[in-house]
């Protein structure tokens, strides 16, 4: 059954290889889904905020990696 374990590990690895990065994505998704609609006057703004948050999380994570690991 070791192949079953490695498949389970692989499936988990499909979504997570940097815990901070994946955690930040899920956190922002929760904010956008459950909190932002209560405050944003327009649902268009909430959609734009969803994209902007994802873009910022990607930028921060990539630049953090580059700072940590010089060539």
């Amino acid at each position: 059954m070791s192949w079953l374990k490695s498949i389970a590990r692989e499936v988990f690895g499909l979504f997570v290889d940097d815990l901070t990065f994946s955690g930040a994505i899920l956190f922002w998704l929760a904010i956008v889904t459950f909190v932002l609609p209560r405050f944003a006057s327009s649902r268009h703004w909430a959609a734009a905020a969803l994209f902007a948050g994802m873009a910022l999380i990607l930028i921060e994570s990539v630049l953090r990696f580059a700072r940590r690991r010089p060539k």
Partner: protein
Amino acid sequence: MSLVLVAINYPHWGWTHIGTTVGAAFLASLVECVEALTVVLAVGSVRGWRSALAGAAAALGVLAVIVAVLGPSLTRIPLHTIQLVVGAMILLFGLRWLRKAILRAAGLIPLHDEAAAFAKNEAAMRTGITKAARGWDKIAFAAAFHITMLEGTEVVFIVVALGAGGIGLLLPAAVGATVALMTVVALGLALHRPLARVPENTLKFVVGVLLSAFGTFWVGEGAGLVWPGSDLAIPFLAGAFLAIALCLVPMCRLQAATVGESK
């Protein structure tokens, strides 16, 4: 033909949506199929083709059963729930691929080398194991089954995720993945060596961009947000993610060089 039927039966999707789904599924599946082919070729060339091909075929059979069970059951779940859950999964998956592709393009993590992977697997198949003289080679069968299940699971997830956007999109996603599988199998049969020239990181870059765009769009739809331009927001999101990713590559190089100099 099946795509024409989808376009006729579900006219609200339009060719832009169907084409993007087919293209994303094709490119993403192509990457996974190439990785599986490398290992199956290494196993087959060292330990014999019969057991290697049987292992790969058995795994494809198991995956087909999973799709047959999972696909129809998705239709019983409310669309908004699927879009939210699957959109979140695509975002985690797509942004992870995009992040890795940016770091690879910037030279911060090594590129995936199919020729090296083939040599490594070939050596592993030779070391300390005597080839079965007759009958089934369990090791070859298990190795081919294992890799096909691993990479195939990713393909199934991609197909289900891209098809989860709405009724009628599962078929275009499945068509894209099937064409990718057939392309890789045909090339493998013709060449009998790993497809080292496939620009894997470029493909992962493009697929990461597409999946991130789809994921953001589905989550927004699932959460009840309104996208300006409706479906046209998908190409806009893809363009925006692509522009950000392309800007990040030189920024990463610069950042790494600056940190390296200051140390």
